[in-house]
């Protein structure tokens, strides 16, 4: 960079106001909800559970929001990558079952790590095939995308039935990840802490990649104006495939975390969670990773709080949150300018 450019004093420049308000929604919700609980322990337990749930939703939704933002593809088949990721754990849990039963944190975490690697590898490979065979022929047509990806989802679910059977399969959490950390009256499940750590790590990594690397720059530019990225000499098609594969792998990672959370595998488990995933990416702003993160936490915390305080409203709470957010910001919490 030229010295004259580097020498420009930031203090002399007009500043862009940072959009902090959406970021404050999650802590504000947590603080405002606290007095409604009779005791601190319930609030802490539900808040931790909500954060863990939010992280898992974020893992499952982040790939979809990138795929929609960059490729303008509505992939209703995204749920199958969640299911597939969950079932891929069986590839590791079968031969390494002893690692899960061992009373060793290292072995247990290694097992979880291997499950994640296997799931991401399987879903990335299937994602590449899915993009090539199902999605590529229908670029530019939303209606066809919905029809074809739903069709792909049904076919893929039947493949899962054919390979692993139609009956639900139980998976056990590794030994040392079971149970809870207890602080006085407060119990925090260990696995939820792991989910929060992994969710934060993935969010941090995605933030770094998107904001500190050239490929991230290209993705952000491509979300705004794919045609201009091509006019600058970049092959956007390769970027599309890479993002689709990465999005599928992230769904696979989310599937692993979801599988151990539910401890039951069904072929439809990914589709079951897709309503939440779509709500989250709409709330966040289509194509926004930050919005997806905040939206996931907002939805999960609200669901947990309302489920405890007013169970009859639990079913509609997510829709209510979405409606309120969209009344406030019709393009989502962090709108992405797309041309």
């Amino acid at each position, binding site marked *: *960079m*030229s*010295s*004259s*450019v580097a020498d*420009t004093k*930031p203090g*002399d*420049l*007009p500043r*862009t106001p940072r959009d902090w308000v959406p970021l404050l929604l999650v802590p504000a919700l947590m603080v405002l909800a606290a007095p409604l609980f009779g005791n601190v322990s319930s609030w802490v337990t539900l808040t931790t559970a909500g954060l863990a749930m939010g992280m898992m939703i974020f893992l499952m939704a982040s790939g979809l929001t990138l795929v929609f933002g960059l490729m303008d593809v509505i992939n209703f088949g995204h749920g199958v990558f969640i299911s597939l990721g969950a079932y891929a754990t069986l590839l590791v849990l079968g031969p390494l079952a002893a690692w899960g039963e061992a009373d060793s944190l290292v072995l247990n975490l290694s097992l979880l790590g291997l499950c994640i690697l296997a799931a991401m590898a399987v879903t990335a490979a299937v994602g590449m095939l899915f993009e090539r065979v199902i999605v590529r022929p229908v670029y530019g047509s939303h209606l066809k995308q919905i029809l074809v990806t739903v069709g792909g989802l049904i076919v893929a679910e039947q493949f899962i039935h054919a390979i692993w059977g139609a009956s639900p399969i139980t998976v056990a959490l590794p030994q040392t990840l079971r149970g809870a950390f207890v602080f006085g009256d407060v119990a925090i499940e260990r696995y939820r802490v792991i989910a929060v750590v992994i969710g934060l790590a993935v969010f941090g990594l995605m933030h770094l990649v998107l904001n500190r690397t*050239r490929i991230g*720059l*290209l993705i*952000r*530019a491509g*979300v*705004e*104006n794919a*045609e*201009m*990225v*091509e*006019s*600058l*000499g*970049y*092959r*956007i098609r390769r970027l599309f495939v890479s993002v689709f594969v990465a999005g599928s792998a992230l769904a696979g990672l989310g599937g692993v975390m979801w599988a151990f959370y539910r401890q039951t595998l069904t072929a439809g488990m990914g589709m079951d969670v897709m309503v939440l995933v779509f709500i989250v990416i709409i709330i966040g702003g289509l194509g926004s990773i930050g919005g997806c993160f905040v939206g996931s936490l907002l939805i999960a915390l609200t669901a947990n709080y309302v489920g405890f305080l007013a169970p009859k409203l639990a079913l509609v709470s997510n829709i209510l949150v979405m409606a309120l957010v969209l009344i406030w910001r019709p393009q989502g919490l962090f709108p*992405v*300018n797309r*041309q």
Partner: protein
Amino acid sequence: MAEAILTLEGVHTHIGPYHILQGVSFGIARGELTMLLGRNGAGKTTTLRTIMGLWQASSGRITFDGREITASATPDIARSGIAYVPESMGIFTGLTVRENIVLAARSGPVDPARLDWILGLFPALRRFWDLPAGNLSGGQKQMLAIARAIAEPRRLLLVDEPTKGLAPVMIRSMIEAFQALKAAGETILLVEQNFHAASVLGDRAVVIDDGRVAHQGPMSELVADTDLQQRLLGLSMDTHQ
């Protein structure tokens, strides 16, 4: 005319059911600034987009520096050395000014001397260097679009209506910037509705009407002939000055 770096021969372009370009043929001489003129809807933007491969020519032949690019993909055309500034400017508003320029430099970091030269042409960009490009005014966005196109040396610059909607003072800045680019030996194909700007900048003029080339020749010839201007563009010099 000097040696042509870009030639279009009998280019036809269809967009859906519409036959926009109907056998366009002209050449761009190396080191010259060629103005592409014509009424609204004549096919100027379509010509640039067809050259860039954003809309495929249905027939005809486009050659750049001796290599046929008629059926090439847009990224390959850009990589062959053509920079394009669309009418919409194509600024990435969520990226900073710096990131917009960094992205345009495909081969690595922007050369510091070249960057200083670019920011000398468009000093306003220096002040907004690390701010989102969405914060820029229309004129500043246009400056950024051109700065981005020349972030690395290119062999041909296609610019679509850079003065459109700009205030007179900004149009003067833009004319000065293009004069500096001309002086630096850049080859430019410039679509322009502002005949004053065209007359000041152009070496040659190609006038398109109804998807066909209605006239081509030295810009001075068109400037000197008000009847020709009236016939081809529907306007006289007086109305533009």
